């Protein structure tokens, strides 16, 4: 007993005051489209199809990069002959839609078949500043409600589970922000779902969703949860992203996302939930543009299944 006490006293506080402070060396890739020649090397190198080239017309090209499917393998960085693909430092990415995770650059082909960049389309998602602000408000006690989370592994490789588990360790300690993992979907405000949804987990995921009380919020975690990732979408075994089975409110890409990214996603989801609980009241933080998921007919409970 004494040993345990003395150990605890000597250890001091290991919890990080600001979980977002540390930046990783390598994040999602960033393409400098203005210098890109649409040569397609990166798309060939990409194992998940996160980069794709399309030809909407004979003299036009479109290159799109989707973080939803990106596993941060950096093959595109190595493959680019123009050296315009770099590893960015962004990892704490969250979005309300898959589209917000995609950038599409358009190119015109000149007479010689060379591509010239014309414009880019991208939709802004929630920024990290927003989550940081929400986090500060939580810490100051302005956002009272706690958040009960039910984790559902719908077929992941368990990498995402390792990082979700890490959010509860003494260094990140999610509990201090009022975020608790609960054992039953009936107690949950939010479902945190990983994996490409497998054929064999589809029904279990649906039932878990239906068992969670309204207004439930769904967060899809990982490249697999956002898009099927390396396992693909629409195969006999992997249905793909979580949104193929239940409505998703927040996407947290990465393979796996760091614990900080998962925390960020949960903070964004808290905003969604606040907005859904008080549709009229001014939101305590910048109101996210969310459309509540369509109310589904309440199915009979899991217990009967």
């Amino acid at each position, binding site marked *: 007993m004494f040993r*345990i006490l003395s150990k605890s006293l000597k250890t001091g506080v290991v919890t990080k005051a600001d979980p977002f402070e540390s930046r990783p*060396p390598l994040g999602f890739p960033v393409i400098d489209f203005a210098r890109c020649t649409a040569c397609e090397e990166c798309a060939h190198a990409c194992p998940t199809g996160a980069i794709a080239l399309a030809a909407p017309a004979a003299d036009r090209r479109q290159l799109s990069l989707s973080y939803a499917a990106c596993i941060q393998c950096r093959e595109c960085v190595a493959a680019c002959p123009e050296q315009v693909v770099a590893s960015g430092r962004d990892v704490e990415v969250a979005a309300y839609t898959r589209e917000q995770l995609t950038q599409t650059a358009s190119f015109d082909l000149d007479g010689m078949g060379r591509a010239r960049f014309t414009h880019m389309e991208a939709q802004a998602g929630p920024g990290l500043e927003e989550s940081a602000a929400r986090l500060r408000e939580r810490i100051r006690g302005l956002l009272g409600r706690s958040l009960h989370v039910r984790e559902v592994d719908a077929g992941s*490789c368990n990498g995402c589970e390792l990082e979700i588990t890490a959010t509860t360790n003494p260094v990140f300690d999610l509990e201090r922000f009022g975020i608790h993992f609960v054992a039953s979907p009936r107690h949950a405000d939010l479902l945190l779902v990983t994996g490409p949804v497998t054929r064999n987990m589809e029904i279990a995921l649906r039932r878990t969703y239906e068992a969670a009380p309204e207004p439930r919020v769904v967060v899809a975690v990982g490249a697999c949860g956002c898009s099927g990732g390396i*396992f693909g979408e629409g195969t006999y075994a992997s249905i793909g992203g979580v949104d193929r089975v239940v409505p998703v409110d927040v996407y947290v890409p990465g393979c796996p996302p760091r614990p900080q990214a998962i925390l960020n996603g949960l903070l964004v989801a808290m905003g969604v939930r606040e907005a859904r609980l008080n549709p009229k009241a001014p939101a305590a933080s910048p109101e996210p543009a969310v459309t509540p998921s369509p109310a589904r007919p309440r199915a009979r409970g899991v217990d009967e299944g």
Partner: protein
Amino acid sequence: MTAARDVLRDRLALETLAELRPGEFVAEVPLSGLPETADRAMAAGLRLASLFGSDEGPGGGFAVHHLWAATGPPGFVRVWAPVARDAPRFPSIAAKYPVANWFEREIMDYFGLVPEGHPNRSRVALHDDWPENVWPLRKDFDDRQVVPRVGGQSRPYRPVIGEGVFHVPVGPVHAGIIEPGHFRFGVAGEPILYLQVRLFYAHEGTEKRFERLPWRHGLFLAESISGDTSVGHALAFAHAIERLVGVEPPPRARHLRVVLLELERVYNHVADIAGIATDVAFTVPAARAQILREGLVTMQERLFGSRLLRGTIALGGVKCDLTLGRRREILLDLEGLQREFDDLVTLLIDSGNFTDRVDGTGILPNQVARDFGVVGLAGRASGLDLDLRRDQPHDAYSGLHFVVPLEEGGDVRARFMMRAREVELSLVILRHVLEDMPEGRVRSALPDALPPSSSALGWAEGWRGECLHWVQTDGEGRLRRVKVTDPSFKNWQGLAHAVPGNILPDFPVINKSFNLSYSGNDL
């Protein structure tokens, strides 16, 4: 090396045995010869490391492969037999050798080949709502399709009869943050009479996916077979491809691979010690172990850009390097870890509260472990002295001398102690390879294409046990079949036999002490 080949050929009484590459032997026998060869292999002390099917595609038949592991002389012997397309059957060996039980049923489910004489010919991998006569690993099955669900229940659970005796169903969605699986306990009050394990909820179609992806991209799929074993499976796949094309990684890469594999072992073992402590409600050491684990993965992110060591292994070498400064940094970090870790282990085993819960809990007897082919840490905790790092060394392990720790108890304590002792050993190995790192390149170039119509086996001793990848190419050099054998596949059956006789509240800690992968099993 031909001496080894001759010894193995005579032991198995085979007419011919070819040595494909060092440590890799192959023989073709007629279907009827599979059981006899199995008898001889078992009698000669070989162990069944894997058993799988393959489909030669249009115009060809199927094949059933028995993969045997020998230790003296060391080597993997693949004994295979062709199966005609119009006679989709093969003789089962499961009645005599339980290790073959799931393997043979998996072939039945995925290829539609009937294991004749198997004592239990019900499905193991396909769920009840999968239709009859649809076999996903056959070549004529297109993976881009939605297979309709069918009604009915083909596999009822074993009934329980008697007063106060009932079923407790658990999963596939569990109460904690763990992978999906279904456990059906037959209990009499608290004591567990038996446990039925139904898995394959996390069947992502991995083996089929390997056949669709360009072979170079298979490496990323291998990293996602089991997220906690990225290095182990990436290495096994890389070894298979490197052996197939005949390319050796440079010496420095072979050393760095040992660093990566041992770091993976250490962070997982430390995390599992946290898990075991949590499951016996001993929160202070659990928190301490979690802090240590977090420190390790943070270090890994700093050094390699990935907390879970993703993207570190390359085909032909590694994608990372460690300068002298970085190596000193790790050595310093590990020194700190060692002190903390020793304290932690002492704290746990000196505590009566802890030993009360783990001593004699979840015993996996040596003979049962042997019968089910249990491998790795769980096998060694039951006295099975197996470790590919020593028995069939890959990468820089051939130049290292070490004693593989072994425990006899087979209980939760033994599996806990194995982890503690393996961490100690890993730290010794790490120190050695970090201090003695050869100079030079970290990656060898690979040819543009794989040789057509060939096959190779790759292996690595991951933290949980042996990871085996057998790859086969078709006439155009594409991957025709990748058979992945994760240690969990064999160990799940062992776990099911370690549970009966214990009380239900002890199941979580027994389960944690094995910490098997669902995704690695379900593929």
